[in-house]
Structures are given as structure tokens and as C-alpha cells.
């Protein structure tokens, strides 16, 4: 009988994160207030498997399956499988070519690279910036190419297929006749303590790469930077977002992260202006801030406490970056406010 032998050059890893917070949130001042309440919220808990095999000649094949799961409840049937970065690719001296479902290049450089909250918790700035998560995409059916790092520079490009195309007669503003697709690219530069990037993303016939909308396109242009000096890390992001039929939205964030042994502190300020329908009497505008403290128990466990406040004008648009209070609670100028404390276990 033939025996199975170990395959040389094959490696795999199982990894995961469980991240829950207990929160007190409310939204006051809008047309439909959200009264103060306690929540237990999941913050992108995940489980993943990644496998790689050396194919010789500097070539490596890889595959990854990553699923999100809600560790707090199953409300809304949200425990779907393989919801996170999953794909297959080949990597070599030419770079990395892969396809599947993955974070876009724009999200990687404008959110993940510079957000000290890692795009997690109610304090994450993506509810104010990147067109209120519209350019914070994990895209389905995306093909990506990442160049090797050359003199500190790296290029990432991505485009989705258009398999959601509608063959119905076009009706502007609806899914009928829409041909939705996404293009995204970024150039990043890293040199010692410095990081900087520029990014561009286009959504054709869709809003937020989610809602197919014939005749509505979106374009995002962003820059981000980060500088580390001793215990301190200063980071920021600025973007301009254009959507058919709206005024350009401008938003930005600045963050300061301090690390002192097992203690971390974060201060963050973010703002967004415009982006409402062209000709509106009042364009949306919001200002927000967040404070956080982290205690690092060890390589697996840390504790985090956050406090955040968002001030919307009467054309309320901004919400928490994760586990938001919802459109109804910010309509008319509702101001989301929350405090949260939780544990993150990573393996």
C-alpha cells in the first residue's frame, strides 16, 4: 500500500481573533434619538487558514480562507462562512498575483496602514472618513497584483469582475441596466520610520461598491502618512470623494499613538465636509474625536477602553466606524456617543 509522505516546502497556519467589547452608546439631537443602552459588540472576530507551498525557482503558491464570526450573538444571520479575505495566488520575484475576495488597495493604504484602531471598535475613523466606509471595501470577485518592494516603493492594483451586470433596460438610479465594477490602486513608500501613500478608487454604476446603481459613479482619491519616533507614532489620512449628483466630500483624520511598555494610548481627531446632493440647502458636516487606552497582557491578549463622540450638523452623515448606531439615529443631526471596554485575543 502506498504511504503518504510529508510534502517538502508546504506550510500552513491557523490563525484567529476574538474581540468583544461592552459598550454604552446613545445618539442625541437628531430626528429619531437612540436612547442610552448597553451593548455587547463583536469587532470583526475571525478564523483563518493560510497555506503556502514553495514551487522552486523563487515561486510560491498560496491559498487563504478567512471567515468572520460574531462572538456576541447571531442576530440577522450574520455568521456566514468565508466572509473575509479569501483567495488564491502565486508569489515570486515579480510580486504577488491573486484573486478572490480581498481588501482593496485603497483600503489597505488609506485605512489599515494608518488607523491606530485597525478599523475596529466604535472609535474607528472609517465612519467619518473614506466616505463613511464607502471606500473601506473588501471587494468580491477581485483580481489583484502587488509589486515587490523596490527602493521602499510598492504598487498595489485591483479590479473586480462585472458579473453583477444587469441586462435589463437601463433605468438611472436603479439596479436595472447597471454594470457595477471597481478599480483600485495605491503606491506606498516606506523608509525606516516613515510611511506615505497615495491611492485612487473608482466605483462604476454602484454606491460604496455595494448598491448597484445605474448611472452613478464614485471616485475616491486619498493620501496617508505615518511617522514613528521613539514611543510615539503620528498618522493621518486625507481624501476627496466624488459621487455623481453630489458635492465632493472632503474628510481627514489625525492620530497620535503612544506606546509605553505594556501601555498604549491613542488620541484621534477626524472631520468630514460635504458630500450631499448637489444643490442641497445644507451640506453634511461632522467633527469627531476618540480616546483609547490599551493594556497589552501578552502576545495573545490585550484590553482596550475607548471613548468617542461624533458631532453631526443637521444633515447628519457620520457614524461610528464599526457597530454604528444606524442611519435613523444620525438623521437630522444625531450625535453618536459611546464608551466601550473589551478584550481581544489573537492567535
Amino acid at each position, binding site marked *: 500500500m502506498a504511504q503518504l509522505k510529508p510534502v517538502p516546502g508546504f506550510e500552513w497556519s491557523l490563525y484567529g481573533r476574538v474581540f468583544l467589547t461592552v459598550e454604552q452608546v446613545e445618539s442625541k439631537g437628531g430626528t429619531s434619538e437612540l436612547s442610552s443602552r448597553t451593548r455587547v459588540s463583536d469587532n470583526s472576530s475571525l478564523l*483563518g487558514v*493560510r497555506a503556502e507551498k514553495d514551487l522552486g525557482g523563487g515561486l510560491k503558491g498560496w491559498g487563504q480562507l478567512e471567515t468572520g464570526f460574531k462572538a456576541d450573538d447571531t442576530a440577522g444571520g450574520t455568521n456566514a462562512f468565508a466572509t473575509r479575505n479569501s483567495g488564491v495566488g502565486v508569489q515570486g520575484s515579480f510580486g504577488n498575483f491573486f484573486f478572490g475576495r480581498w481588501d482593496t488597495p485603497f483600503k489597505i493604504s488609506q485605512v489599515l496602514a494608518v488607523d*491606530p484602531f485597525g478599523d475596529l471598535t466604535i472609535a474607528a475613523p472609517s465612519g467619518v472618513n473614506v466616505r463613511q466606509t464607502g471606500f473601506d471595501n473588501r471587494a468580491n470577485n477581485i483580481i489583484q497584483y502587488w509589486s515587490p518592494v523596490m527602493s521602499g516603493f510598492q504598487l498595489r492594483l485591483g479590479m473586480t469582475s462585472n458579473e453583477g451586470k444587469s441586462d435589463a433596460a437601463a433605468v438611472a438610479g436603479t439596479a436595472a441596466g447597471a454594470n457595477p465594477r471597481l478599480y483600485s490602486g495605491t503606491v506606498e513608500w516606506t523608509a525606516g520610520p516613515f510611511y506615505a501613500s497615495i491611492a485612487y478608487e473608482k466605483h462604476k454604476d454602484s454606491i460604496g461598491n455595494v448598491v448597484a446603481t445605474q448611472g452613478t459613479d464614485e471616485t475616491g482619491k486619498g493620501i496617508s502618512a505615518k511617522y514613528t519616533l521613539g*514611543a510615539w507614532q503620528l498618522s493621518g489620512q486625507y481624501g476627496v470623494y466624488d459621487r455623481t449628483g453630489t458635492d465632493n466630500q472632503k474628510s481627514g483624520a489625525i492620530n497620535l499613538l503612544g*506606546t509605553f511598555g*505594556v501601555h*498604549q494610548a491613542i488620541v484621534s481627531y477626524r472631520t468630514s465636509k460635504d458630500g450631499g446632493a448637489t444643490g442641497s440647502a445644507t451640506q453634511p458636516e461632522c467633527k469627531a474625536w476618540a480616546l483609547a487606552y490599551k493594556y497589552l497582557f501578552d502576545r495573545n491578549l490585550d484590553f482596550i477602553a475607548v471613548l468617542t463622540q461624533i458631532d453631526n450638523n443637521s444633515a447628519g452623515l457620520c457614524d461610528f466606524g464599526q457597530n454604528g448606531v444606524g442611519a435613523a439615529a444620525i438623521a437630522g443631526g444625531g450625535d453618536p456617543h459611546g464608551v466601550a471596554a473589551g478584550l481581544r485575543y489573537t492567535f
Partner: protein
Amino acid sequence: MWSAAAAQSSDDRIRALESEVQSLKKRIDALEGRKEAAATPPPSDCPGWDRLRMSLTQAEVRGLLGEPAKIESTPVQIKWRYPCGTAYFDIDTKRFVGYER
């Protein structure tokens, strides 16, 4: 055909085999706790590991431990593999968060 060169080759092989047998005997002695174990070289004392502290930068860890033998990463952690163990870094801050030896 027998030749002087062939005899020389056989002698070399016998010496190599004798040397290997001696080496294996030493290892068995060491494993069974006999006195010869003292002759076995002690494992490396892994300098620098006792000076690792939470939140060191990657440059500081490299300064203490040297270049890692291998770098691996998952989407949630970065691992630097050394003969003496593994150093872990946070994926977001790239700072040292712990090790295994």
C-alpha cells in the same frame, strides 16, 4: 582488480565509520545520563532573549537577537523565527508583543 588506491579508499571508509560509531556512542551516553554526557556541548544560551521587553520596535529586537532565520506572518501577527525560539509582533503597530522558546 585489487589496487593500492582501493585499499586506501577502504581504510578511509573504515575510519569514517569508526568515527561515526564513536559519535553515536557519545550521544547514547548523553541520552542515558552517563558521565560522558558532560562532554556534550551545552545548548546555546541564546543571548539577548532575557532583554526582550514588551513593545520594542523591530529594529530593537533585531539589535538584541540579530537577523531572524525566517520571517512568517499571518493577517493578525508577525513571527520572527530563531533557533532559540519565536518572537511575535503586532500586525498593526509592528511592535514586539511576546515570544516562545
